């Protein structure tokens, strides 16, 4: 019995000492977040009650769980960085963080994670920010359900919503990022998953990859961004079921691929973009089950693209399906549906009996002399396109879909 009591009391003490709760509010013993962080012991929980806390440069240097109850606001008053995490196992939940300082020499962020592991940042709302969530040389973290609304106008004086730098195994899910420079930016970050996010109305890219390999992004929506999504200098990226829409402007595209190898682009929808996918120097990419609808150019191939395969995609009502700037082709098109296909299917097997040539002469001409686009939809252009279709001279003559589908591909 005595033993049990001792055991119980020891248990109680450990529990209280391990998971001690500190409350912060205007009338509590602790009135500032900074004080709470200083007083807290590792593995404590800090609960911040409703209120406005004018603080910045908060350094979380021990494993803490910081929870905001009823959405307390931390206002940085544009003085600099707000929360910096330098310890492993930190969780931040339910805060509103506002007014991050803008600087041209250092990248102030609302929340920065530095050389830490196992962090969680969730249900946070960021407003008036420079950089939003900045993950630096940190691994195995989660960034969930955050809402980042910036007020960026120009590229040079704005920051990114969520930025990863030399970080591995980060999960980014269910976030909303709007009005910043790049919605989500990954540099030298491998094995990350980006799921179910909405990135829109950003000044530059909705999502931007640089030198990051083996990442997966799926079920995201990218719309109305300055230039769409850019995937550059990366390997083995998987892009599944994303929606790219309304990236409409003179230098816009749904997705830009530059120096991308061995990627998989499956089940995505591209609609109302000036250019659906702009491809440059990308090899061995699988394009499958994508929908391209009402784009200016569905796919624009700039050169140095080899052994890519396009199968079972739907190309619907694009001004140009495919544009090539050379007449050499090493890519395969097979079993796609083309809305402008005019062939027939006599044996009723669902596959057109004559091959389809997706590259029109006019798209070749426009590539050479961009001004000629002014003749778009002119009758003369229809005539020369037709004659080129009958006997190709300028467009790659082996570039064709030998098995064009008669009905929209379904999967």
């Amino acid at each position, binding site marked *: 019995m005595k033993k049990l009591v001792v055991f119980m009391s020891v248990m109680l003490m450990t529990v209280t000492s391990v998971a001690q709760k500190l409350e912060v509010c205007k009338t509590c013993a602790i009135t500032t977040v900074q004080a709470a962080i200083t007083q807290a012991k590792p593995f404590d929980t800090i609960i911040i009650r409703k209120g406005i806390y004018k603080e910045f440069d908060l350094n979380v240097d021990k494993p803490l769980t910081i929870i905001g109850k009823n959405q307390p606001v931390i206002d940085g008053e544009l003085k600099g960085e707000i929360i910096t995490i330098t310890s492993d196992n930190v969780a931040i939940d339910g805060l509103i963080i506002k007014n991050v300082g803008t600087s041209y020499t250092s990248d102030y962020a609302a929340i920065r994670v530095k050389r830490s592991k196992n962090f969680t940042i969730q249900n946070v709302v960021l407003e008036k920010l420079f950089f939003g969530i900045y993950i630096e040389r940190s691994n195995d973290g989660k960034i969930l359900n955050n809402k980042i609304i910036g007020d960026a106008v120009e590229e040079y004086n704005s920051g990114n919503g969520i930025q990863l730098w030399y970080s591995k195994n980060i999960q980014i899910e269910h976030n909303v990022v709007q009005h910043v420079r790049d919605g989500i930016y990954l540099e030298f970050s491998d094995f990350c998953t980006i799921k179910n996010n909405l990135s829109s109305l950003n000044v530059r890219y909705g999502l931007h990859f640089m030198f990051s390999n083996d990442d997966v992004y799926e079920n995201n929506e990218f719309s109305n961004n300055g230039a769409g999504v850019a995937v550059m200098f990366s390997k083995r990226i998987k892009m599944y079921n994303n929606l790219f829409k309304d990236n*409409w*402007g*003179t*230098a*816009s595209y749904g997705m830009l691929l530059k120096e991308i190898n061995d990627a998989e682009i499956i089940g995505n929808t591209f609609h109302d973009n*000036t250019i659906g996918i702009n491809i440059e120097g990308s090899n061995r990419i699988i394009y499958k089950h994508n929908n391209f609808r009402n784009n*200016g*150019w569905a796919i624009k191939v700039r050169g140095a693209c080899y052994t890519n395969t396009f199968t079972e995609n739907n190309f619907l*009502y694009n*001004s140009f399906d495919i544009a090539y700037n050379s007449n050499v082709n090493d890519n395969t098109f097979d079993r796609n549906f083309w809305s402008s296909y005019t062939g027939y299917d006599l044996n009723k097997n669902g596959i057109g009996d004559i091959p389809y040539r997706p590259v029109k002469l006019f798209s070749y*001409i426009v590539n*050479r*002399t*961009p*001004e*000629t*686009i*002014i*003749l*778009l*939809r*002119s*009758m*003369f*252009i229809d*005539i020369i396109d037709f004659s080129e279709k009958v006997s190709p001279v300028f467009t790659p003559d082996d570039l064709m879909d030998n098995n064009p589908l008669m009905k929209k591909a379904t999967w």
Partner: protein
Amino acid sequence: MLKILKYSFYDLMRSRWSYVYFAFYLLLGIVLLFLNNDLSKAVITLMNVIIILVPLIGTIFGVMYYYNSKEFTELLLAQPLKRSSIFLGQYLGVAISLSMSLILGLGLPFVFYGLFESSAIWDFSLLLITGTFLTLIFTALAFNIALSNENKIKGFGYAILLWLFLAVIYDGIFLMILIGFEEYPLDKVSLIGTMLNPIDLSRTLILLKLDISALLGYTGAIFKQFFGTSFGLIVSFIALSLWVIVPVLRIVYKSKKKDF
């Protein structure tokens, strides 16, 4: 002049061809709307039809009407009437009845479809306005050709040739020039080239309204700057009006001098 206009107009209203023309547009409108189910897509398809077919029909109809009513015209000429009012009356009679067929034929199905609640109403009105302009322009050109050629076959030939030139050959030459001088800045050239051909001008106006402007890239920016502003719109409508006024003035001039 108004009497003759009225006479020509009613004469054409009674003729079978106006009904055929009207019915054709009505059918086209209905088919497009019910097969497409998308108003802005239908507007694009309609544009393709309008910039090719309206000029063709305007030209053929104009020439045909002139030659057919030649005897009646000669009868009128014997009366104490001003020559300009006889020919202008006839011209306006043809042009107005054709425009009416176009506007009613296309307008009715779209109105029933619910155009007034749609955002495409401006695109659609622009389409009808340019269509009407094209009718006025090509009927005037047709009358010019017919006035200058006694020989029916020659007159028809020239009329078809004119249509072919403006609808197809002009664009071919335009394209050759653009490619030939691709190393030079071409935005002004392409702007002027578009202004000089009423069919190209109408097409560009409609395309820019349909937001294909983003496809135009750098050139598009210049075009958008020009056509997107009210200044550009006014200039292009002035250009279209000039295309109506100059041939009409020539009808007046030619008809005064012509020996019947």
